[in-house]
């Protein structure tokens, strides 16, 4: 027995040193290819001044707005709030489209519009259900709902894939999952986060097979939807990652975190390439989204900061909300972006 103990100790020590060297080797490899920082961006011309105004204010929620999503027709949006209501709006005319669907519970932290425009998905507490939309104003939508996803902890985000038939969800139980809407079947689950997963975003690439998720373990993981494996992982934030969003080209993504910074990660170079922060910004970022050259961030200090993606400088700061900005999305054709806030409104 004594010799076994000694053997065990030796293997432990051996493995320990091996793994430490592995990790430092990875950092070395990553650093080797980092030959330029912003020299490339310096040659690009700067952006002029931007005048961005609130064009619409959508009032109708009775409590904090927690999530919103655009419809592919570029003018309709769905929003969910802590009063348990999910409202579909035509943001252009500011009319409420459907009778607001009232949820049986108040934790409606996620909502998504289906690509066809014919349904919305809402995540309440630990379940996600899909509600088909109809033209008939009197129809009781709650009756037609289809329960799809089920987690063992709260649902933090949900999103349709390229079709109405599949939903991707992330949850406080540390996993993400892909579901078949028709049957409610679990198609694939993604394990790897060590804490709650707070956000996810699907890649806009031609193959459309990957997505990124961010969690309370400060990691942003890129996953392969086919195999359920984590392909890449980035751990440079100092606090929980509240929001992730892919760049339109699909080669990079940004994340916003409680440490008051947004960071840009390049997937091909496999590293963080830019940090968007300022000494004067100390409140966390709740949500981020991209336009071609601009990164919009909604912050917990009630403002929206607009950053130049290439130069890393702040282009503009927008005021208007009277409480923290909880969600932010750019419209599908890039003509506008919408924010939802704890002040019960959307702009």
């Amino acid at each position, binding site marked *: 027995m004594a010799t076994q103990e000694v053997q065990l100790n030796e293997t432990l020590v051996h493995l320990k040193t091996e793994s430490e060297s592995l990790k430092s080797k990875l950092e070395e490899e990553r650093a080797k290819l980092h030959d330029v920082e912003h020299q490339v961006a310096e040659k690009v011309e700067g952006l002029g001044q931007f005048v961005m105004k609130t064009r619409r204010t959508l009032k109708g929620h009775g409590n904090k707005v927690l999530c919103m999503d655009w419809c592919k027709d570029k003018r309709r949006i769905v929003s969910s709030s802590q009063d348990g209501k999910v409202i579909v709006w035509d943001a252009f005319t500011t009319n409420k489209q459907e009778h607001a669907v009232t949820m049986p519970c108040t934790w409606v932290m996620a909502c998504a519009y289906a690509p066809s425009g014919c349904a919305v998905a809402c995540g309440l507490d630990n379940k996600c259900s899909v509600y088909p939309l109809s033209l008939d104003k009197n129809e009781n939508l709650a009756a037609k709902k289809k329960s799809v996803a089920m987690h063992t902890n709260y649902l933090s985000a949900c999103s349709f894939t390229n079709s109405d038939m599949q939903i991707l969800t992330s949850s406080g139980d540390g996993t993400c999952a892909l579901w078949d809407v028709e049957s409610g079947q679990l198609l694939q689950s993604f394990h790897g986060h060590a804490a709650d997963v707070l956000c996810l975003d699907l890649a806009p690439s031609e193959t459309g097979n990957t997505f990124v998720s961010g969690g309370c373990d400060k990691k942003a993981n890129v996953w392969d939807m086919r195999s359920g494996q984590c392909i890449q992982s980035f751990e440079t934030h100092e606090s929980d990652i509240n929001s992730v969003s892919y760049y339109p080209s699909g080669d990079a993504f940004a994340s916003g975190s409680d440490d008051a910074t947004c960071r840009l990660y390049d997937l091909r170079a496999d590293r963080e390439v830019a940090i968007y922060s300022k000494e004067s910004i*100390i409140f966390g970022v709740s949500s981020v989204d991209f336009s071609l050259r601009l990164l919009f961030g909604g912050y917990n200090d009630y403002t929206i900061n607009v950053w130049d993606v290439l130069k890393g400088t702040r282009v503009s700061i927008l005021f208007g909300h009277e409480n923290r900005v909880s969600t932010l999305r750019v419209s599908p054709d890039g003509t506008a972006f919408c924010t939802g806030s704890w002040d019960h409104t959307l702009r």
Partner: protein
Amino acid sequence: MTIRTARPDRVQHFRRLHCLKKLEAIVVEMQDPKSGLKGSEQKLNVTTIPHVIAGKDIIAWIANKMKITVEEAQAFGTMFVAYGYIYALQNHKKLVMCNDSSLYRFQTPYFWPTQKWVADDTDYELTFFNFLHPFSKQAHYNRLHKWLFHKWDFIVMQATEQYKASRERKKPDRVVFDCQERAYWIVNRPPVSNMFYQQAIMRSKVKSSVSLGALVKYITTYKNHDPFLAPCLPSNPWQTDNDSYWNLNMRRVDVPTKMRVERWSFSLFELLTDLRGRDDFKIFLKKEFSGENLAFWEAAEELKWGTAASMSTKAETIFKTFLAPGAPRWINIDGRTMGLTVKGLDHPHRYVLEAAQTHVFLLMKKDTFFRYLKSPVYKDIQKKSLNPQPHNFSQAQLEQNAQNRSPGIHPTILWKQEEEEKAKAAAAAAPVDVKAMMSKIDRKK
């Protein structure tokens, strides 16, 4: 830093679930020697494991006991697995209950989630040492060394003690205990695969300058197409309250705008994602008699994103139409890919056509796409495309616009139209079944 009122604390949420008490009561009932489920001994690999139950038996018991349908019982059963009251012996990572002969066991009360102890780091590390995958042990040392340095000697001692004790147990008991422990940790702390570091080091990376350069190039290409950087024609609907911009760019316009046509030339991906562009591409392909590649690509996309139930029928149709020798729309892919795909179609799953689809996409991207851009079809549409005049509304007109915002068309109406169009196109394109026609003629005679 910020007050986390919006997110319930994970462990507290877990514990506060009163339903767990109810679940436990049912689990106890399930194990009742008289009215509960009967376990049996099953052979798994080489060891015989006692008290094993099949998934379908559990589901049948639940359905019977609670007077619910089989589907509901299956969802209910999945909850037992998800919370860790029942664990699967095969395929233990997927936390669902399957309505078939997959084997399950009841978890010992020691590991039930309502036990007051939190899934502690120390315990996790100990278990990790004992039986998880050897690769996992490697990179885990970092965490261990950092977090538990002060407890290091204690851990090593505990680990060796546990190791000794486990050696003394009989083999079947050990297997059972290992299964129980593993099941507990899969529910409470998902294992981090640490072959990951090895793979991460080997993966090919690109120099920062190259990737940043690509980003700059992307931005330069799309600069004039971004509504924040360049004015959109005729005007941004949010600024002028006039939605002609959206109407001009709808799915089924006869004449697209110049910007839209220009965007199609950026990449095959852009061309195919814009359905109007795809239509134009189809016109070109029809002239070249090479429409089957795009048709195959579209069918493969439908398979990937379709409902699970339709999978096998779709796969069969695709095989008959595109891949079978002598098929009416046979695609020309290399032998190896064809072989792999056909083999995969024996057990069709969502991604069975992935290899073939990528091959076809690359073919189109490297060859057909460029020929399209130089073709008369494309040049024609470029000439015809509209270049709307920018709006120049006066203040009064702007106010008028704000009063008369058009409601647009509801997406469900558009969707129905789309489906109808698709059905029409499919019917028109269906290859004529010569045999059936001939036999019809024969019968008439």
